[in-house]
Protein backbone atom coordinates (compact mmCIF):
# COMPACT_ATOMS: atom_id res chain seq x y z
CA UNK A 1 0.00 0.00 0.00
CA UNK A 2 2.70 2.45 1.05
CA UNK A 3 4.38 3.94 -2.02
CA UNK A 4 8.13 3.66 -2.26
CA UNK A 5 9.43 7.12 -1.46
CA UNK A 6 13.09 6.33 -2.00
CA UNK A 7 15.74 8.44 -0.38
CA UNK A 8 13.40 11.39 0.11
CA UNK A 9 10.95 9.50 2.31
CA UNK A 10 11.82 11.56 5.34
CA UNK A 11 11.19 14.88 3.60
CA UNK A 12 7.88 13.83 2.07
CA UNK A 13 6.55 12.15 5.19
CA UNK A 14 7.58 14.95 7.53
CA UNK A 15 6.03 17.63 5.35
CA UNK A 16 2.76 15.69 5.15
CA UNK A 17 2.80 15.01 8.87
CA UNK A 18 3.56 18.62 9.78
CA UNK A 19 0.94 20.05 7.46
CA UNK A 20 -1.76 17.67 8.54
CA UNK A 21 -0.92 18.35 12.16
CA UNK A 22 -1.14 22.11 11.65
CA UNK A 23 -4.43 21.88 9.77
CA UNK A 24 -5.89 19.48 12.31
CA UNK A 25 -4.80 21.78 15.10
CA UNK A 26 -6.40 24.78 13.46
CA UNK A 27 -9.64 22.90 12.85
CA UNK A 28 -9.67 21.59 16.42
CA UNK A 29 -9.06 25.01 17.93
CA UNK A 30 -11.77 26.55 15.76
CA UNK A 31 -14.30 23.85 16.63
CA UNK A 32 -13.56 23.81 20.35
CA UNK A 33 -13.83 27.57 20.62
CA UNK A 34 -17.02 27.54 18.51
CA UNK A 35 -18.62 24.98 20.81
CA UNK A 36 -17.55 26.77 23.99
CA UNK A 37 -18.76 30.18 22.85
CA UNK A 38 -22.03 28.68 21.62
CA UNK A 39 -22.66 27.05 24.98
CA UNK A 40 -21.74 30.14 26.99
CA UNK A 41 -23.95 32.34 24.86
CA UNK A 42 -26.88 29.98 25.32
CA UNK A 43 -26.41 30.12 29.06
CA UNK A 44 -26.28 33.88 29.12
CA UNK A 45 -29.28 34.23 26.84
CA UNK A 46 -31.34 31.90 29.01
CA UNK A 47 -30.38 33.88 32.07
CA UNK A 48 -31.22 37.17 30.36
CA UNK A 49 -34.65 35.81 29.45
CA UNK A 50 -35.52 34.65 32.96
CA UNK A 51 -34.32 37.93 34.43
CA UNK A 52 -36.33 40.21 32.30
CA UNK B 1 1.31 74.70 13.51
CA UNK B 2 4.71 76.22 14.04
CA UNK B 3 3.90 76.66 17.70
CA UNK B 4 3.05 72.97 17.93
CA UNK B 5 6.30 72.02 16.25
CA UNK B 6 8.37 74.19 18.58
CA UNK B 7 6.50 72.87 21.59
CA UNK B 8 7.05 69.27 20.58
CA UNK B 9 10.75 69.76 19.96
CA UNK B 10 11.15 71.56 23.24
CA UNK B 11 9.38 68.79 25.10
CA UNK B 12 11.52 66.14 23.46
CA UNK B 13 14.74 67.92 24.29
CA UNK B 14 13.79 68.85 27.81
CA UNK B 15 12.46 65.45 28.78
CA UNK B 16 15.87 64.12 27.79
CA UNK B 17 14.10 61.07 26.41
CA UNK B 18 14.06 60.71 22.66
CA UNK B 19 16.87 63.09 21.96
CA UNK B 20 19.88 61.59 23.70
CA UNK B 21 18.49 58.10 24.09
CA UNK B 22 18.20 57.33 20.41
CA UNK B 23 21.74 58.46 19.74
CA UNK B 24 23.16 56.48 22.64
CA UNK B 25 21.29 53.41 21.50
CA UNK B 26 22.71 53.82 18.01
CA UNK B 27 26.20 54.12 19.47
CA UNK B 28 25.76 51.00 21.57
CA UNK B 29 24.56 48.95 18.61
CA UNK B 30 27.54 50.07 16.57
CA UNK B 31 29.94 49.28 19.42
CA UNK B 32 28.43 45.87 20.06
CA UNK B 33 28.53 44.65 16.47
CA UNK B 34 32.32 44.14 16.31
CA UNK B 35 32.12 42.19 19.56
CA UNK B 36 29.59 39.94 17.90
CA UNK B 37 31.20 39.38 14.51
CA UNK B 38 34.88 39.80 15.30
CA UNK B 39 37.33 42.63 14.77
CA UNK B 40 38.38 41.95 11.14
CA UNK B 41 38.39 45.29 9.36
CA UNK B 42 37.54 43.83 5.96
CA UNK B 43 34.46 42.08 7.27
CA UNK B 44 33.32 45.17 9.17
CA UNK B 45 33.76 47.31 6.08
CA UNK B 46 31.51 44.97 4.14
CA UNK B 47 28.67 44.96 6.64
CA UNK B 48 29.06 48.55 7.84
CA UNK B 49 26.35 50.11 5.60
CA UNK B 50 23.78 47.53 6.64
CA UNK B 51 24.65 47.76 10.34
CA UNK B 52 24.52 51.55 10.28
CA UNK B 53 21.12 51.49 8.61
CA UNK B 54 19.79 48.85 10.97
CA UNK B 55 21.12 50.73 13.99
CA UNK B 56 19.51 53.96 12.83
CA UNK B 57 16.23 52.14 12.22
CA UNK B 58 16.18 50.54 15.66
CA UNK B 59 17.16 53.79 17.35
CA UNK B 60 14.29 55.45 15.52
CA UNK B 61 11.91 52.72 16.66
CA UNK B 62 12.92 53.24 20.26
CA UNK B 63 11.39 56.70 20.56
CA UNK B 64 8.27 56.17 18.45
CA UNK B 65 5.86 55.61 21.31
CA UNK B 66 6.66 59.10 22.60
CA UNK B 67 5.14 60.73 19.53
CA UNK B 68 1.62 60.58 20.91
CA UNK B 69 1.81 58.84 24.29
CA UNK B 70 2.56 61.87 26.47
CA UNK B 71 -0.06 64.03 24.79
CA UNK B 72 -2.55 61.19 25.10
CA UNK B 73 -1.94 60.75 28.81
CA UNK B 74 -2.34 64.39 29.82
CA UNK B 75 -5.27 64.95 27.47
CA UNK B 76 -3.62 67.53 25.24
CA UNK B 77 -4.25 65.26 22.27
CA UNK B 78 -7.99 65.75 22.80
CA UNK B 79 -7.43 69.48 22.89
CA UNK B 80 -5.42 69.34 19.69
CA UNK B 81 -8.13 67.30 18.04
CA UNK B 82 -10.75 69.94 18.81
CA UNK B 83 -8.47 72.74 17.65
CA UNK B 84 -8.95 74.19 14.16
CA UNK B 85 -5.85 72.36 12.95
CA UNK B 86 -6.68 69.40 10.72
CA UNK B 87 -5.73 66.07 12.24
CA UNK B 88 -3.57 65.26 9.21
CA UNK B 89 -1.56 68.40 9.89
CA UNK B 90 -1.09 67.53 13.54
CA UNK B 91 0.16 64.08 12.64
CA UNK B 92 2.57 65.45 10.05
CA UNK B 93 3.94 68.04 12.45
CA UNK B 94 4.42 65.44 15.13
CA UNK B 95 6.23 63.16 12.70
CA UNK B 96 8.39 66.10 11.64
CA UNK B 97 9.21 66.89 15.25
CA UNK B 98 10.15 63.24 15.79
CA UNK B 99 12.40 63.34 12.75
CA UNK B 100 14.10 66.57 13.83
CA UNK B 101 14.80 65.23 17.31
CA UNK B 102 15.63 61.62 16.38
CA UNK B 103 16.21 61.12 12.68
CA UNK B 104 18.35 64.16 12.00
CA UNK B 105 20.79 63.55 14.89
CA UNK B 106 21.13 59.96 13.71
CA UNK B 107 21.98 61.14 10.21
CA UNK B 108 24.57 63.54 11.56
CA UNK B 109 26.11 60.93 13.87
CA UNK B 110 26.16 58.12 11.29
CA UNK B 111 29.44 59.14 9.56
CA UNK B 112 31.14 59.31 12.95
CA UNK B 113 30.00 55.79 13.72
CA UNK B 114 30.96 54.76 10.21
CA UNK B 115 34.58 55.34 11.20
CA UNK B 116 34.17 52.83 14.00
CA UNK B 117 32.97 50.21 11.52
CA UNK B 118 35.66 50.96 8.95
CA UNK B 119 33.19 52.14 6.33
CA UNK B 120 34.93 52.60 2.95
CA UNK B 121 35.63 56.20 2.01
CA UNK B 122 33.27 56.23 -0.97
CA UNK B 123 30.40 55.17 1.26
CA UNK B 124 30.08 58.23 3.50
CA UNK B 125 28.42 60.45 0.94
CA UNK B 126 25.82 57.82 0.06
CA UNK B 127 25.27 56.75 3.63
CA UNK B 128 24.39 60.29 4.67
CA UNK B 129 22.26 60.87 1.60
CA UNK B 130 20.37 57.60 1.99
CA UNK B 131 19.74 58.20 5.68
CA UNK B 132 18.69 61.76 4.98
CA UNK B 133 16.21 60.49 2.41
CA UNK B 134 15.08 57.44 4.34
CA UNK B 135 14.71 58.51 7.96
CA UNK B 136 11.73 60.83 7.29
CA UNK B 137 9.88 57.77 5.99
CA UNK B 138 10.79 55.95 9.20
CA UNK B 139 9.30 58.78 11.26
CA UNK B 140 6.11 59.01 9.20
CA UNK B 141 5.53 55.25 9.19
CA UNK B 142 6.37 55.18 12.88
CA UNK B 143 3.81 57.89 13.57
CA UNK B 144 1.21 55.64 11.98
CA UNK B 145 2.21 52.77 14.24
CA UNK B 146 2.25 55.07 17.26
CA UNK B 147 -1.24 56.28 16.40
CA UNK B 148 -2.48 52.69 16.19
CA UNK B 149 -1.18 51.77 19.63
CA UNK B 150 -1.68 55.07 21.44
CA UNK B 151 -4.48 53.96 23.72
CA UNK B 152 -2.91 50.67 24.77
CA UNK B 153 -1.23 50.07 28.07
CA UNK B 154 1.48 47.75 26.83
CA UNK B 155 1.70 49.28 23.40
CA UNK B 156 5.49 49.40 23.07
CA UNK B 157 6.09 45.82 22.04
CA UNK B 158 3.04 45.72 19.80
CA UNK B 159 4.23 48.94 18.19
CA UNK B 160 7.49 47.27 17.17
CA UNK B 161 5.66 44.24 15.83
CA UNK B 162 3.40 46.46 13.72
CA UNK B 163 6.01 48.92 12.50
CA UNK B 164 8.96 46.65 11.69
CA UNK B 165 7.32 44.86 8.73
CA UNK B 166 6.33 48.27 7.39
CA UNK B 167 9.98 49.33 7.55
CA UNK B 168 11.12 46.53 5.23
CA UNK B 169 11.02 48.41 1.89
CA UNK B 170 12.69 51.50 3.33
CA UNK B 171 15.43 49.43 4.91
CA UNK B 172 16.05 47.39 1.77
CA UNK B 173 16.43 50.38 -0.51
CA UNK B 174 18.23 52.55 2.02
CA UNK B 175 20.80 49.92 2.91
CA UNK B 176 21.15 49.06 -0.77
CA UNK B 177 22.06 52.66 -1.60
CA UNK B 178 24.63 52.75 1.21
CA UNK B 179 26.06 49.36 0.28
CA UNK B 180 26.34 50.09 -3.43
CA UNK B 181 27.79 53.49 -2.67
CA UNK B 182 30.43 51.94 -0.44
CA UNK B 183 31.33 49.42 -3.14
CA UNK B 184 31.41 52.10 -5.82
CA UNK B 185 28.47 50.72 -7.79
CA UNK B 186 25.53 52.45 -9.47
CA UNK B 187 23.11 53.82 -6.88
CA UNK B 188 20.52 55.62 -9.00
CA UNK B 189 17.77 52.96 -8.94
CA UNK B 190 17.59 52.23 -5.21
CA UNK B 191 18.07 55.93 -4.50
CA UNK B 192 15.05 56.83 -6.61
CA UNK B 193 12.99 54.02 -5.08
CA UNK B 194 13.94 55.20 -1.59
CA UNK B 195 12.96 58.76 -2.45
CA UNK B 196 9.71 57.47 -3.94
CA UNK B 197 8.83 55.53 -0.80
CA UNK B 198 9.60 58.52 1.42
CA UNK B 199 7.54 60.91 -0.71
CA UNK B 200 4.67 58.46 -0.97
CA UNK B 201 4.68 57.78 2.76
CA UNK B 202 4.82 61.48 3.61
CA UNK B 203 1.98 62.27 1.22
CA UNK B 204 -0.43 59.44 2.05
CA UNK B 205 0.26 57.99 5.49
CA UNK B 206 -0.78 61.09 7.50
CA UNK B 207 -4.32 60.49 6.25
CA UNK B 208 -4.27 56.95 7.60
CA UNK B 209 -2.67 58.07 10.87
CA UNK B 210 -5.25 60.83 11.26
CA UNK B 211 -8.09 58.38 10.66
CA UNK B 212 -6.59 56.05 13.25
CA UNK B 213 -6.23 58.85 15.80
CA UNK B 214 -9.84 59.90 15.27
CA UNK B 215 -10.96 56.34 15.96
CA UNK B 216 -8.80 56.19 19.07
CA UNK B 217 -10.09 59.51 20.39
CA UNK B 218 -13.71 58.52 19.84
Amino acid at each position, binding site marked *: *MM*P*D*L*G*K*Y*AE*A*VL*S*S*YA*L*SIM*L*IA*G*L*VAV*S*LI*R*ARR*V*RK*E*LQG*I*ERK*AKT*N*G | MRALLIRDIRLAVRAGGGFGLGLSFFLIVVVLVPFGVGPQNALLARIAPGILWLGALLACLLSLDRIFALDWEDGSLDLLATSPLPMEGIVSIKALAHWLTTGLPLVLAAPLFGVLLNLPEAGYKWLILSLLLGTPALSVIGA*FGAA*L*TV*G*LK*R*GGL*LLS*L*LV*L*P*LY*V*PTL*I*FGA*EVARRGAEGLQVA*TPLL*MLAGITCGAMAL*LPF*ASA*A*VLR*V*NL*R
Partner: protein
Amino acid sequence: MSSIWEYANPKKFIETTDRILPALAVLTGVALLLGLIWGFFLTPDDFRQGSTVKIVFLHVPSALMAINAWLMMLVASLIWIVRRHHVSALAARAAAPVGLVMTMIALLTGAIWGQPMWGTWWAWDPRLTSFLILFLFYLGYIALWAAIENDDTAADLTAILCLVGSVFALLSRYAVNFWNQGLHQGASLSVKSGERMDMTYKLPLYVCMAGFVLLFVVLVLIRTGTEIRARRMRVLLARERMGA
Protein backbone atom coordinates in the same frame (compact mmCIF):
# COMPACT_ATOMS: atom_id res chain seq x y z
CA MET C 1 -24.14 51.20 23.24
CA SER C 2 -25.04 49.26 20.15
CA SER C 3 -28.65 48.35 19.59
CA ILE C 4 -29.91 44.80 19.46
CA TRP C 5 -31.12 45.42 15.91
CA GLU C 6 -27.57 45.55 14.80
CA TYR C 7 -27.55 41.78 15.10
CA ALA C 8 -30.42 41.19 12.71
CA ASN C 9 -28.01 40.75 9.89
CA PRO C 10 -25.46 38.64 11.80
CA LYS C 11 -28.33 36.46 12.99
CA LYS C 12 -29.23 35.71 9.42
CA PHE C 13 -25.58 35.00 8.71
CA ILE C 14 -25.44 32.48 11.54
CA GLU C 15 -28.67 30.82 10.48
CA THR C 16 -27.54 30.49 6.90
CA THR C 17 -24.09 29.22 7.71
CA ASP C 18 -25.41 26.75 10.26
CA ARG C 19 -27.58 25.34 7.51
CA ILE C 20 -24.94 25.00 4.82
CA LEU C 21 -21.90 24.20 6.98
CA PRO C 22 -22.41 20.44 7.39
CA ALA C 23 -22.67 19.85 3.65
CA LEU C 24 -19.75 22.16 2.99
CA ALA C 25 -17.63 20.43 5.61
CA VAL C 26 -18.30 17.03 4.07
CA LEU C 27 -17.39 18.37 0.64
CA THR C 28 -14.16 19.81 2.06
CA GLY C 29 -13.23 16.52 3.67
CA VAL C 30 -13.89 14.61 0.48
CA ALA C 31 -11.88 17.04 -1.67
CA LEU C 32 -8.94 17.15 0.73
CA LEU C 33 -8.84 13.39 1.26
CA LEU C 34 -9.22 12.66 -2.44
CA GLY C 35 -6.59 15.22 -3.45
CA LEU C 36 -4.01 14.30 -0.83
CA ILE C 37 -4.45 10.53 -1.17
CA TRP C 38 -4.26 10.85 -4.93
CA GLY C 39 -1.21 13.04 -4.62
CA PHE C 40 0.53 10.93 -2.01
CA PHE C 41 -0.22 7.38 -3.13
CA LEU C 42 -1.05 7.51 -6.81
CA THR C 43 1.39 9.89 -8.45
CA PRO C 44 4.67 8.67 -9.94
CA ASP C 45 8.03 10.05 -8.84
CA ASP C 46 9.43 12.91 -10.84
CA PHE C 47 12.55 11.99 -12.80
CA ARG C 48 14.54 14.83 -11.25
CA GLN C 49 12.85 15.57 -7.93
CA GLY C 50 12.08 12.00 -7.03
CA SER C 51 9.32 11.59 -4.49
CA THR C 52 9.67 15.15 -3.17
CA VAL C 53 7.36 16.19 -5.99
CA LYS C 54 4.55 14.99 -3.74
CA ILE C 55 5.15 17.91 -1.39
CA VAL C 56 3.83 20.20 -4.08
CA PHE C 57 0.28 19.09 -3.27
CA LEU C 58 0.61 20.77 0.12
CA HIS C 59 2.97 23.58 -0.73
CA VAL C 60 1.20 25.20 -3.66
CA PRO C 61 -2.36 25.15 -2.28
CA SER C 62 -1.27 26.49 1.09
CA ALA C 63 0.79 29.25 -0.52
CA LEU C 64 -2.21 30.10 -2.69
CA MET C 65 -4.48 30.35 0.34
CA ALA C 66 -1.88 32.31 2.35
CA ILE C 67 -2.12 35.12 -0.20
CA ASN C 68 -5.83 34.79 -0.89
CA ALA C 69 -6.63 34.90 2.81
CA TRP C 70 -4.91 38.27 3.03
CA LEU C 71 -6.81 39.46 -0.07
CA MET C 72 -10.06 38.32 1.49
CA MET C 73 -9.17 40.23 4.68
CA LEU C 74 -8.43 43.29 2.56
CA VAL C 75 -11.81 43.10 0.82
CA ALA C 76 -13.60 42.47 4.12
CA SER C 77 -11.80 45.43 5.70
CA LEU C 78 -12.83 47.67 2.82
CA ILE C 79 -16.45 46.52 3.16
CA TRP C 80 -16.29 47.27 6.88
CA ILE C 81 -14.87 50.74 6.29
CA VAL C 82 -17.37 51.63 3.58
CA ARG C 83 -20.56 49.79 4.56
CA ARG C 84 -19.89 49.07 8.24
CA HIS C 85 -21.27 45.53 8.25
CA HIS C 86 -20.11 43.94 11.46
CA VAL C 87 -20.02 40.50 9.93
CA SER C 88 -17.44 41.73 7.48
CA ALA C 89 -15.07 43.02 10.17
CA LEU C 90 -15.45 39.81 12.14
CA ALA C 91 -14.86 37.71 9.04
CA ALA C 92 -11.55 39.51 8.51
CA ARG C 93 -10.65 38.76 12.09
CA ALA C 94 -11.67 35.13 11.68
CA ALA C 95 -9.61 34.69 8.52
CA ALA C 96 -6.32 35.97 9.91
CA PRO C 97 -5.29 32.90 11.96
CA VAL C 98 -6.24 30.64 9.05
CA GLY C 99 -4.03 32.69 6.77
CA LEU C 100 -1.26 32.54 9.35
CA VAL C 101 -1.38 28.76 9.48
CA MET C 102 -1.44 28.55 5.68
CA THR C 103 1.64 30.76 5.51
CA MET C 104 3.31 28.53 8.07
CA ILE C 105 2.52 25.39 6.08
CA ALA C 106 3.82 26.98 2.90
CA LEU C 107 7.05 28.03 4.62
CA LEU C 108 7.59 24.71 6.38
CA THR C 109 6.88 22.47 3.39
CA GLY C 110 9.02 24.78 1.28
CA ALA C 111 11.90 24.44 3.72
CA ILE C 112 11.56 20.65 3.86
CA TRP C 113 11.46 20.49 0.08
CA GLY C 114 14.34 22.91 -0.30
CA GLN C 115 16.67 20.89 1.91
CA PRO C 116 17.20 17.98 -0.54
CA MET C 117 16.52 20.03 -3.69
CA TRP C 118 18.42 23.27 -3.19
CA GLY C 119 20.66 21.85 -0.49
CA THR C 120 19.47 24.32 2.12
CA TRP C 121 16.51 24.73 4.46
CA TRP C 122 16.29 28.40 3.91
CA ALA C 123 17.50 30.83 1.29
CA TRP C 124 16.82 34.54 1.18
CA ASP C 125 15.05 34.10 -2.07
CA PRO C 126 12.45 36.76 -2.95
CA ARG C 127 9.46 34.46 -2.66
CA LEU C 128 10.55 32.91 0.60
CA THR C 129 11.38 36.30 2.00
CA SER C 130 8.05 37.77 0.92
CA PHE C 131 6.25 34.95 2.64
CA LEU C 132 8.21 35.52 5.80
CA ILE C 133 7.22 39.18 5.66
CA LEU C 134 3.61 38.18 5.04
CA PHE C 135 3.87 35.99 8.14
CA LEU C 136 4.99 39.02 10.16
CA PHE C 137 2.07 41.05 8.82
CA TYR C 138 -0.35 38.33 9.92
CA LEU C 139 1.25 38.30 13.37
CA GLY C 140 0.94 42.07 13.74
CA TYR C 141 -2.65 42.07 12.52
CA ILE C 142 -3.70 39.33 14.94
CA ALA C 143 -1.83 40.96 17.81
CA LEU C 144 -3.58 44.28 17.20
CA TRP C 145 -7.00 42.60 17.21
CA ALA C 146 -6.14 40.88 20.46
CA ALA C 147 -4.80 44.01 22.13
CA ILE C 148 -7.79 46.33 21.78
CA GLU C 149 -10.75 45.82 24.03
CA ASN C 150 -13.46 47.85 22.34
CA ASP C 151 -14.80 45.81 19.40
CA ASP C 152 -15.59 48.67 17.05
CA THR C 153 -12.30 50.43 17.70
CA ALA C 154 -10.43 47.19 17.07
CA ALA C 155 -12.34 46.62 13.84
CA ASP C 156 -11.58 50.14 12.60
CA LEU C 157 -7.90 50.08 13.50
CA THR C 158 -7.22 46.62 12.12
CA ALA C 159 -9.05 47.50 8.91
CA ILE C 160 -6.82 50.52 8.40
CA LEU C 161 -3.76 48.44 9.31
CA CYS C 162 -4.83 45.87 6.72
CA LEU C 163 -5.09 48.54 4.01
CA VAL C 164 -1.77 50.18 4.83
CA GLY C 165 -0.18 46.77 5.35
CA SER C 166 -1.33 45.60 1.93
CA VAL C 167 0.38 48.55 0.25
CA PHE C 168 3.59 47.92 2.17
CA ALA C 169 3.43 44.17 1.60
CA LEU C 170 3.27 44.85 -2.12
CA LEU C 171 6.13 47.33 -1.86
CA SER C 172 8.15 44.78 0.08
CA ARG C 173 7.52 42.22 -2.63
CA TYR C 174 9.11 44.49 -5.24
CA ALA C 175 11.84 45.64 -2.89
CA VAL C 176 12.77 42.05 -2.11
CA ASN C 177 12.74 41.17 -5.80
CA PHE C 178 15.13 44.00 -6.44
CA TRP C 179 17.28 43.02 -3.51
CA ASN C 180 17.85 39.41 -4.54
CA GLN C 181 16.95 37.74 -7.80
CA GLY C 182 16.47 34.33 -6.25
CA LEU C 183 16.36 30.68 -7.25
CA HIS C 184 12.66 29.88 -6.87
CA GLN C 185 10.90 28.56 -9.93
CA GLY C 186 8.57 30.90 -11.76
CA ALA C 187 4.86 30.30 -12.23
CA SER C 188 3.52 28.13 -9.47
CA LEU C 189 1.93 25.67 -11.84
CA SER C 190 5.15 24.72 -13.59
CA VAL C 191 7.30 22.62 -11.34
CA LYS C 192 10.38 22.89 -13.52
CA SER C 193 11.11 26.16 -15.20
CA GLY C 194 10.48 25.89 -18.91
CA GLU C 195 8.62 22.61 -18.65
CA ARG C 196 4.88 22.52 -18.20
CA MET C 197 3.60 20.39 -15.40
CA ASP C 198 2.30 17.04 -16.46
CA MET C 199 -1.40 16.20 -16.20
CA THR C 200 -0.65 13.36 -13.79
CA TYR C 201 0.42 15.99 -11.27
CA LYS C 202 -1.89 18.77 -12.36
CA LEU C 203 -5.19 16.99 -11.73
CA PRO C 204 -4.54 15.98 -8.11
CA LEU C 205 -3.07 19.44 -7.55
CA TYR C 206 -6.29 21.06 -8.72
CA VAL C 207 -8.27 18.80 -6.39
CA CYS C 208 -6.00 19.77 -3.50
CA MET C 209 -6.35 23.44 -4.34
CA ALA C 210 -10.13 23.10 -4.36
CA GLY C 211 -9.87 21.26 -1.03
CA PHE C 212 -7.78 24.05 0.52
CA VAL C 213 -10.14 26.74 -0.78
CA LEU C 214 -13.10 24.87 0.71
CA LEU C 215 -11.21 24.33 3.95
CA PHE C 216 -10.54 28.05 4.16
CA VAL C 217 -14.20 28.90 3.50
CA VAL C 218 -15.47 26.42 6.07
CA LEU C 219 -13.01 27.55 8.73
CA VAL C 220 -13.75 31.22 8.12
CA LEU C 221 -17.50 30.59 8.31
CA ILE C 222 -17.16 28.66 11.56
CA ARG C 223 -14.83 31.22 13.09
CA THR C 224 -16.94 34.16 11.97
CA GLY C 225 -19.95 32.57 13.60
CA THR C 226 -17.92 32.15 16.77
CA GLU C 227 -16.80 35.78 16.67
CA ILE C 228 -20.38 36.95 16.19
CA ARG C 229 -21.54 34.89 19.15
CA ALA C 230 -18.62 36.03 21.30
CA ARG C 231 -19.41 39.64 20.47
CA ARG C 232 -23.08 39.24 21.26
CA MET C 233 -22.09 37.62 24.52
CA ARG C 234 -19.94 40.59 25.45
CA VAL C 235 -22.78 42.99 24.64
CA LEU C 236 -25.24 40.98 26.74
CA LEU C 237 -22.82 40.75 29.65
CA ALA C 238 -22.15 44.47 29.51
CA ARG C 239 -25.88 45.18 29.49
CA GLU C 240 -26.42 42.88 32.43
CA ARG C 241 -23.71 44.65 34.38
CA MET C 242 -25.26 48.01 33.60
CA GLY C 243 -28.72 46.79 34.61
CA ALA C 244 -27.49 45.27 37.85
